[in-house]
């Protein structure tokens, strides 16, 4: 999510393919270095309700995730 623009596709690829994964890892780190938060929409296994899971490391991304959403970190308004 980019202020003034909304959703912007940063990178896409198959994480099982090594070259794609390297590109995805690089973009993931770049976004976190810029101060963004990363979250993955998931379904709670207990309640079945959708929720988000915050990820701070590429390895934390659930393997079956289709996307990671980066958004500016929250601050007091």
């Amino acid at each position: 999510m980019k202020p003034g623009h909304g959703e912007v596709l940063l990178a896409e690829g198959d994480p099982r393919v090594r070259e794609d994964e390297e590109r995805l890892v690089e973009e993931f780190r770049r976004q976190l270095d810029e101060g963004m938060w990363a979250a993955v929409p998931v379904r709670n296994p207990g309640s079945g309700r959708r929720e988000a899971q915050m990820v701070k490391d590429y390895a934390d991304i659930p393997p079956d995730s289709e996307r990671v959403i980066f958004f500016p970190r929250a601050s007091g308004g």
Partner: protein
Amino acid sequence: MLLALLALALIAMVLAAPLGLRRLRDWRARRPTRATAGELDLELYDPGRERRAEQRARELLRSCVNAEEWGMYRDLGFIRVAGRHARREIDRDRGAHPAYAYLVYPHKPIVAYVPETGQLLSEYCVEFPDLTGGGGRHRLPASDDVLAKWMALTSDEDRVIRRANMHLVGRQLDPARVRRDLWRLAEWERRRGNREQVQQSQR
């Protein structure tokens, strides 16, 4: 005599023309140029950009939240998110009847309240500032702002609440309007419940 003077004036003008042109060129080169949009790094205004961004944001929000939450946002303009950090153990994990909940509005504070009584607890002012060096000129589209709050609350409620500025309800939001929204939400849920009952009976 007059004719001779006119001829002399014409010859003088022709001879002076190159000098005049050179002076004009020098003056134009020396005068400060007017800044153009490109030199100031200003983007040309695209009147449809914000509308398209909001459309994309709505689709993204719809694809992430629960069907009930999406319907709430579409019909009422806000989303209710259950709170998960009640102090008493007995109040935690109460499923559809949480001890407290939040109303998430676009570009407005998050409101905490008690669903059972309708008591308004506090408002949390939180924003997602532009980190790209845009000088704070831009903000997220409305639906992206709601999604960011939803993701922050459902994934790490403590962190977002710690970062927010907490106030009593009434600092930015009109308590009467929030109470009216709670009434609208109750009506919306009642109608939705009735609709689901009818659909189940028709099966």
